[in-house]
């Protein structure tokens, strides 16, 4: 049974996944749609459901979500393999180019050790395989890990070597 966490702890997943059968989804639900469904029927869903989210697969273009930006409260990015890193770029594009500010969830093949780099690319939620993995991930997030890059989070550290670093270190 998969376990959902954010950066502080285990959280309950209140989203319903639309898998082609709308019969079980009522207006009060939070609906998670495949990107094709959002692009085709987005208006209908936005009027029907309480909240709408979308799942991106590795080949989906995050900039296609721009028209729905203000109405999406969750974007989930699906990792088909632990070693398929397209989702990291998709996340950065979503945060830094599209300007999406809602929850960003990593789903699929991710492990505890990927949570830190995922966080740095802008993810806020992580669906992990089991409770043990979730517990390990939460321990790893707590470690203060210094990093060189100003990715999506901690954009305000100045990592370039030399004068900028010297100033940052003495500040």
């Amino acid at each position, binding site marked *: 049974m998969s376990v959902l966490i954010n950066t502080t702890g285990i959280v309950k997943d209140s989203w319903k996944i639309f898998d082609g059968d709308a019969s079980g989804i009522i207006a009060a639900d939070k609906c998670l749609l495949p990107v094709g469904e959002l692009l085709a029927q987005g208006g209908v869903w936005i009027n029907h459901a309480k909240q709408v989210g979308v799942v991106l697969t590795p080949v989906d273009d995050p900039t296609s979500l721009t028209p729905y930006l203000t109405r999406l409260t969750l974007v989930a990015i699906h990792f088909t393999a632990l070693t398929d890193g*397209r989702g990291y*770029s998709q996340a950065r594009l979503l945060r830094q180019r599209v300007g999406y500010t809602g929850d960003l969830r990593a789903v699929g093949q991710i492990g505890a050790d990927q949570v830190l780099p995922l966080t740095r690319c802008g993810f806020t939620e992580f669906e992990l395989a089991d409770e043990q993995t979730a517990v390990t991930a939460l321990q*790893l997030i707590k470690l203060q890990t*210094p990093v060189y*890059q100003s*990715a999506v989070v901690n954009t*305000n550290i100045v990592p370039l*070597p030399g004068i900028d670093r010297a100033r940052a270190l003495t500040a």
Partner: protein
Amino acid sequence: MYQYDSFDQAVVDARVAQFANQTERFLKGELSEDAYRPLRLQNGLYLQKHAPMLRIAIPYGTLSALQLSALADIASEFDDGYGHFSTRQNLQLNGPRLEQVPAILRRLATVQMHAIQTSGNCIRNVTADHLAGVAIDEVADPRPVAELIRQWSSLHPEFLFLPRKFKIAITGSSADRAAIAVHDIGLGLRTSNGELAFDVFVGGGLGRTPIIGQHIRAALPKAQLLNYLEAILRVYNLHGRRDNMYKARIKILVRELGISQFTDAVEKEFSSILADAKKISAMGTTGPGLIRDETWDSLFQNFPVPACENFSESEIAAAETSCITHAAANPGFSRWLQRSRHDHRQPGYAAISISLKDGVQAPGDCTSAQMHGVASIASQYSFGEIRVTHHQNLVLPYVRIDDLPDVYRQLQDLKLASPNIGLLTDIIACPGGDFCSLANAVSIPIAKAIQSSFDDLDELFEIGPLELNISGCMNSCGHHHIGHIGILGVDKKGESFYQVSIGGNQGPDARLAKILGPSFAEHEIPDVVERLIRCYLGLRESKTERFVDAVTRVGIEPFKEAVYVSAD
């Protein structure tokens, strides 16, 4: 050379702790083999045939004497007392125990070293000209650029799971001693309107589909370097093939899209990144922004020129004369000087190559005692600095001309004074089937067999400059595609054979070698090389026409004939 600040040290220390934790969880069974594999690979650790192999990064091939001594100690304490310098300026240990790797990394961190991203499908150790900072033909020193890229690429969260490995090389000189044309990204430092700028090449690489890199950008302003690299990497990360690992390198993407469509995609991403950067700074934070002139200046200041003596012309003349007199009385020294001495930017100094190809040890191998010895010579004669070359040799970058006889004597004592730099026996070879689990065939015994059949120095000097490269499989770690003579181990129904190609070249005139014909059995290789050499000596126009020049002029046919026809 660059010294870590407290931040660099903290990054490396944190990585050591992280890796120790990952290894502990793996050994306890909490982390599966599949989950651990990419993590250990991102830290240079392979689980090989006989034992793990740990690849230690030597960023842009620059080492201090202290670091080389530490490597020597690590090799004797955790391995069999030697290390292997690779074609990517790294050092490989072929026999540490998995449980000991965290301790090795801890030791490395105390001398500002690591094994971060020396393997795995991520941005690998950045390589550069081994004569950086001392070469007379240099536009600018590539090391500060390489250090900037080292830091930018280390644990970059977006690019840890690329479709395949990614190698960047930098040269500051038009002579290109870093082979930038056969890297995923090659950077050439240029000046444009008096400002430092970059010529960018993309999509080069060896492996089973060798391709010469293509020019994608001229005069990239230095301020935008990281933004441009990010654009290339992002296009590759999103669009590179992931369905077939043999087609996953960026060179295949560039080839499939065509350079013009690939360039359009990169330029579009690049403009968007520059626009994003503005947007992000408008949000009040410092994003992946431009590199200011001030930052560049301080980066270059991190690589100060050592306090060389400013010799007068007469002092230099006297040193040269004494060197010549010494050489006249000592033919061994004379030969060594001819091959190992390189021109130096500082009058009165030379850069000295140390051959790791004595024909006894495997190419690129160096014992702990030799490493300690070189470290001590470097401390005494070369401002404590050593370089590692992609030819698997070492360099002492700052030796006074009047010290050359002493340096030679001391290297002789270490059995490191082979006068064969750039000659046929200066063979580049991967570890091959003796160590590597990817290999189809052995490399080291082939190298040794060739070296022992060409043990006459007069003959070697007569043959002149020649690069011979051996790879034990088509992953091409021995760079056989760009050897003047390239030898590739292939597997045919469980038996090892060797395919021979000629006419490859690296540097500004990079070319891929052409395959001569059907492959040979292991024992035939020395004879095949002999035949190629005899053919070359018979048809060269003069002594200054190198083997590779002769192949370029006459084509491979006469060589083919020499090898196959008369062999019957």
